[in-house]
């Protein structure tokens, strides 16, 4: 598998380590509930189809990336820096 790191270019998947689904959002703060945290830590959609997922370019620029990929075909639709995605999400939350 080849993943196109937005910073480093196309690399073999062996350079990356995988975390999982990027959809769950960490419940932040002292008010977060244990139930919400349980769902964040443990429950997954695990779709057969498109998933947005977190990869870490461990052997490259050490960027976390959000890869949009089809789990049936491995076809990759996009790769974005996770930090950009997270910032957009945070600013969305703020708005």
């Amino acid at each position, binding site marked *: 598998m080849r993943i196109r790191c937005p910073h480093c270019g196309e690399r073999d998947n062996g350079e990356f380590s995988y975390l999982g689904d990027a959809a769950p959002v960490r419940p932040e703060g002292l008010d977060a509930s244990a139930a919400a945290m*349980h769902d964040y830590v443990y429950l997954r959609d695990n779709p057969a189809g498109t998933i947005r997922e977190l990869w870490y370019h461990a052997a490259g620029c050490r960027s976390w990336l959000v890869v949009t990929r089809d789990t049936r075909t491995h076809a990759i639709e996009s790769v974005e820096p996770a930090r950009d995605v997270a910032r957009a999400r945070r600013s969305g939350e703020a708005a």
Partner: protein
Amino acid sequence: MRYSLFSVLGQALRGQRDWTPQWRDAAPQEAYDVVIVGGGGHGLATAYYLAKEHGITNVAVLEKSHVGSGNVGRNTTIVRSNYGLPGNIPFYERSMKLWEGLEQDINYNAMVSQRGVLNLYHSDAQRDAYARRGNAMRLAGIDSELLDREGVRGLVPFIDLDNARFPVKGGLLQRRGGTVRHDAVAWGYARAASDRGVDIVQNCAVTGIRRENGRVTGVETSRGFIRAKKVALSVAGSSSLLAGMVDMRLPIESHVLQAFVSEGVKPLIDGVMTFGAGHFYVSQSDKGGLVFGGDIDGYNSYASRGNLHTIEDVMEGGMALWPGLGRLRLLRHWGGIMDMSMDGSPIIDRTDIGGLYLNAGWCYGGFKATPAAGFCFAHLIARDEAHADASAYRLDRFATGHLIDEKGMGAQPNLH
């Protein structure tokens, strides 16, 4: 026809003409007491034990493809009960005991072969971890031996004990462990279940699960709606997809695990051997091929194939441990889809939906579990209470913290 040397000899004289299908290729009926989704090893074993142990025979096993087309036919055929945590130990030992009597029970030679499973260690810390595990096994009455270097050398003299990057210091041996001819397990259970009246319905894909008032009423399939009092999911690899049909999210990700077989050669290795400092384990099939594997590819996938990176990783492990393998050739590699759970251990439990039962999350331990998974799942379905040996495999353990994490890797499926 009962299988025996005599029946085979008799048929040899008759040109093998009188054999009949090993299981009935049933058409689905309108309704069943129990519908088992998934005609793999676990589903078929569940049907068999429902019939045998609980007298429940109005059962259908629905298989979207053909019997044994999933992981039961794609694994590296290892059976063992060398687990270290109390939640796992009795269950896998139940499975081992069932393996030991399986062939006579179902009248099918699945080639259960107890030639030993040897896990190598390469450091004092690893030795102590294996001692911890071996002692836990002994507490449960399971055989385990901690070998030193010379003990290992005696068993597998061809490995690189001295010049390896991670020299071998010893191993944990379970002599009762070994291998089983994987396909034959599915076929044997299918035949035995079919003989007891279970309908095995092939080419029947489940497309929906119908519920009324919080209870299941049946399944939608590619061959029409089938009513059922109880529905049991046994579809490792696709558990999340089936659960999704009733809006359940599971603590599971689907991952691809590759397996490998070499060209057939005359006997090289008797039992199963696992490298403790790399991703490599190996045994040799009765046909002569080395069967080996390593780590999962590590990303969510429903495509039954992996990538070169993992292949090289496994071969490197093989060469590091066993430098005589260099000129032996890899014949085939393939991938299977694993239900990788959040703590590396399975789930055999009821769900919040009445009459819906779940057998899932086997990671790559599903094959060795086949008889006990069937046995315990059947018990749960028949009696609505967990079998004692599988009582730790609860779905709510992630909320309660009763985790069964043999590797200690936490809530990241690809690290288990």
